[in-house]
């Protein structure tokens, strides 16, 4: 049995962020059909858990649930996408300790980056490894701050910062050089 009060809360807390939830699900699953399934599942979870919502940051709360639903979906349908995460963290640590994060000379000019069209940009983001992709989407597409991203992706703020830096470096190199060759 469900109280009408829960419906009212669901409408005011969750539904305003449906567009953001859908966008995140689309970036994580890679297509619109799966994104709709993920968002629907996330909304059912949000509805069941609406009593546990503390009322502080509805958008971050909805996105956290959506991300969780997306990862469950990925685990069922694309387990290879998730298996990379641990390896990637290891790689990230190694790069960091070697000081490989400094901008290299081969990085393209800002003017070249600015020429990328929407399709090129989307494809480049879609190719980012999952942890980098979600950090970049949450920050640069959806406009969350580091604290919110840390909350949604359940990692420390320092990790958010380094993932974001790495995601942007990969993007710059990708959209700046790939097209100039073709």
């Amino acid at each position: 049995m469900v109280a009408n009060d829960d419906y009212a809360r669901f409408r005011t807390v969750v539904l305003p962020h449906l567009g953001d939830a859908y966008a995140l699900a689309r970036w994580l699953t890679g297509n619109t059909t799966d994104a709709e399934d993920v968002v629907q599942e996330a909304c059912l979870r949000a509805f069941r858990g609406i009593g546990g919502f503390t009322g502080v940051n509805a958008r971050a709360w909805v996105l956290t649930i959506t991300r969780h639903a997306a990862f469950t979906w990925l685990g069922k349908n694309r387990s290879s996408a998730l298996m990379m995460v641990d390896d990637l963290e290891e790689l990230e640590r190694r790069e960091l300790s070697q000081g490989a994060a400094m901008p290299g000379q081969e990085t393209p000019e800002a003017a070249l980056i600015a020429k990328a069209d929407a399709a090129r940009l989307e494809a480049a983001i879609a190719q980012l490894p999952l942890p980098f992709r979600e950090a970049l989407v949450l920050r640069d597409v959806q406009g969350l701050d580091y604290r919110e991203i840390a909350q949604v992706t359940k990692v420390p703020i320092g990790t958010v910062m380094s993932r974001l830096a790495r995601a942007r470096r990969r993007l710059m190199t990708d959209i700046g050089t790939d097209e100039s060759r073709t």
Partner: protein
Amino acid sequence: MTSATKNDPALLIHAYVDGELDPAHALEVERALAGDPALAAERERIETLQRLIRERLPPMAAPPGLARRIEAAIAGTTERPFFARPFSLPWLFPGAGVRRAPSWGALAASVMLALIVGSSSTWLTLRQGQLTPAEATADMVLASHIRALKAPQPADVASSDNHTVKPWFNGRVSEAPRVVDLGNEGFPLIGGRVDVIGRVPVPTLVYRRRQHLISLMALPNDQAPAVTSALRSIAGYNILTWRQNGTLYWAVSDVAPPDLDAFAKAFRAASG
């Protein structure tokens, strides 16, 4: 932020562009920017990339109809055990199947609700002049109970956990009631709602006795008419009143008087 990443300018420049640095670190980055063309170029690239994303990838709206499908999915998983089911008319929509039935049930229920609320309040207005305060309250208590039976849900917060039900009342009524689950005594707690008795919002607890519901309203003493503990019967419903800890309780149900009496005893014993 770990100590390894703390002072790496290649990382800090991102946090700087994002406005996430405290003033001390921001100053440090600005000093580094002034003396390091490579870092300044990186800053320009980051800002270009961000501008590019903003311009090329505008905010995405959910597809039309997604919100509606989600609400339908939620309604589909929601159990509506009391009154929605009899009103669903699957035989009218043989091809439409189960998904349509709940919305028709809800529609029919809300029409019924409107009729009942409308007619009973009219009736109350006409009759109220001739009633004693206790009789008028009994009528309002009964009307609230019947209205709850006709609504899709008899409780606005549905839970058998008193730690869920009691806090729900905070801010809705002047004083949250004592909430006890009487499942062991054969009266499991279903949830709570707010009723309006004589223009005052009062907390109502909902209990179940087999297939019957019991509404228990807790009126603060100063709002309560002078009544002694009494059982009255109106239109097939039994109403039991008692005073306890400065509160006037009204229990209303279609259970038999001995059951209602047993309920009152169990509640008094558990909450006293």
